[in-house]
């Protein structure tokens, strides 16, 4: 094979799908063929059966909706705080000098370790779930946006100054629009991470949501349900990512033209 040589779109699709098939086939072979104990790993067919029962009988779709709401609620909360702060840090160096050391430190505080504390503060209700996602996302967003904004093309800023922009005009009509697509991309990335935090939040002290269903299934050794839950999370994550990407493309046609 020639290194770095591009692959045709048709072949790319075929190859991409065939790994999925291979993966499921291997899974079916070790489970249906009796190579692993059914208690530890359900086969694909009973996974689908369990999933169907979950949706129809146990109203699992309600859990899905609750989880989606938590992810977006926490994510929106984090974005509303982090985006203006990130822009301020990137644009004004004293603000950066003031906040950057703390935010860099706070970024390494694991969101999951905050759960016991957040339960003490906010109980085990919705607010606590939102806060876990908030803590997990907010510092990341601030830092990434501050770096992007800080590397705004200087020649564009200079051009705007020679056209009469004030300091305020530079921030609002050069720095912000210039970085808007990158900011949206950052949010898309962090939304993906928020999906992992929400499950962690739902594993502890929760009575609803996909994560709750998973931990609940563990005690009943319902591995089919667990796998179904994991796949549902993956699919929703993939869908929201596609939607976000399409939205960004629609919002910023100039960055692709």
């Amino acid at each position: 094979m020639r290194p770095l040589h591009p692959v045709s779109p048709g072949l790319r699709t075929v190859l991409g799908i065939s790994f999925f098939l291979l993966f499921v086939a291997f899974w079916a072979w070790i489970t249906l063929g009796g190579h692993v104990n059914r208690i530890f790993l359900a086969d694909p067919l009973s996974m689908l059966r369990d999933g169907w029962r979950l949706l129809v009988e146990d109203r699992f779709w309600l859990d899905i909706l609750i989880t989606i709401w938590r992810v977006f609620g926490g994510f929106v909360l984090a974005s509303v705080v982090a985006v203006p702060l990130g822009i301020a840090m990137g644009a004004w160096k004293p603000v950066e000098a003031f906040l950057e050391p703390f935010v860099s430190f706070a970024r390494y505080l694991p969101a999951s370790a905050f759960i016991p504390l957040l339960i003490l503060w906010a109980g085990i209700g919705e607010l606590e779930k939102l806060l876990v996602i908030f803590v997990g996302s907010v510092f990341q967003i601030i830092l990434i946006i501050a770096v992007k904004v800080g590397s705004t093309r200087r020649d564009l800023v200079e051009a705007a100054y020679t056209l009469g922009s004030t300091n305020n005009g530079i921030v609002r009509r050069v720095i912000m629009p210039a970085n808007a697509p990158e900011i949206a991309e950052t949010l898309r990335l962090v939304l993906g991470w928020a999906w992992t935090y929400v499950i962690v939040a739902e594993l502890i002290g929760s009575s609803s949501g996909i994560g709750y269903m998973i931990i609940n299934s563990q005690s009943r050794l319902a591995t089919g349900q667990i796998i179904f839950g994991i796949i549902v999370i993956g699919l929703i994550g993939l869908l929201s990512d596609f939607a976000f990407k399409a939205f960004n493309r629609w919002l910023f046609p100039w960055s692709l033209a």
Partner: protein
Amino acid sequence: MIKLLIEGVSRTFAGVRGGEPVKALMPVDLTVAANDFITILGPSGCGKSTLLRIVAGLEAPSEGRVLLDGKAVTRPGPDRGMVFQSYTLFPWLTVAENIAFGLRERGMAEKERDGIVASYVDLVGLKGFENHWPKQLSGGMQQRTAIARALANDPEILLLDEPFGALDNQTRGLMQELLLGIWERRKKTVLFVTHDIEEAIFMASRVIVMTARPGRIKSDVAIDLPHPRHYTLKTSPEFSTLKAQLTEDIRVEAMRTAQV
């Protein structure tokens, strides 16, 4: 009438890691009359761009001062329009919105802007491209938009920092004619930095030749070729004589730069 006065302007850059400070520009004195087209010609690294950036207010001189219409320049402003060598159109704005940028910053109403923008779109021959994104334009079209953007503000002086430096030779020639044509019709004070001898002579009413770094003014050559100028002028005997003279001037400097 004196439009721009550069008095003893020099620039020294602080040394890197405690090293010797670097002198980029020796004290320069220059007087520019209103509606003059001045080209500043020099080998690369001679500080000609630095001089232009000081006039624009994007850099501060280490010594000396710049006066525009008798007022000292301290910071960039819309009275000194600038066209850069790099493509600096705002990528999130269309051609028309780019040209309107300065007017909008001034708070001009949209209706009033539209008329001005349309006339400058026309002036640089971009009719039909008003709603294109910068990315969809060729380099020459981007620089035409940048010129229109700077002119739409009706600045007192137009500063151009090797604006056609990144263009291919043919486009470059066409752009020179376009800009000169605009200047011949509209009359504007222009400071044009270049390292291209032919370009410097063709555009200018005065060529300022600078020495190798640290730059200072080596010669000040009046170009008395008649206007309107046509590209065929570049093959005329008068043009060749000037070119030979300036080539000799600049060659010495280029050799000094190369040997450093």
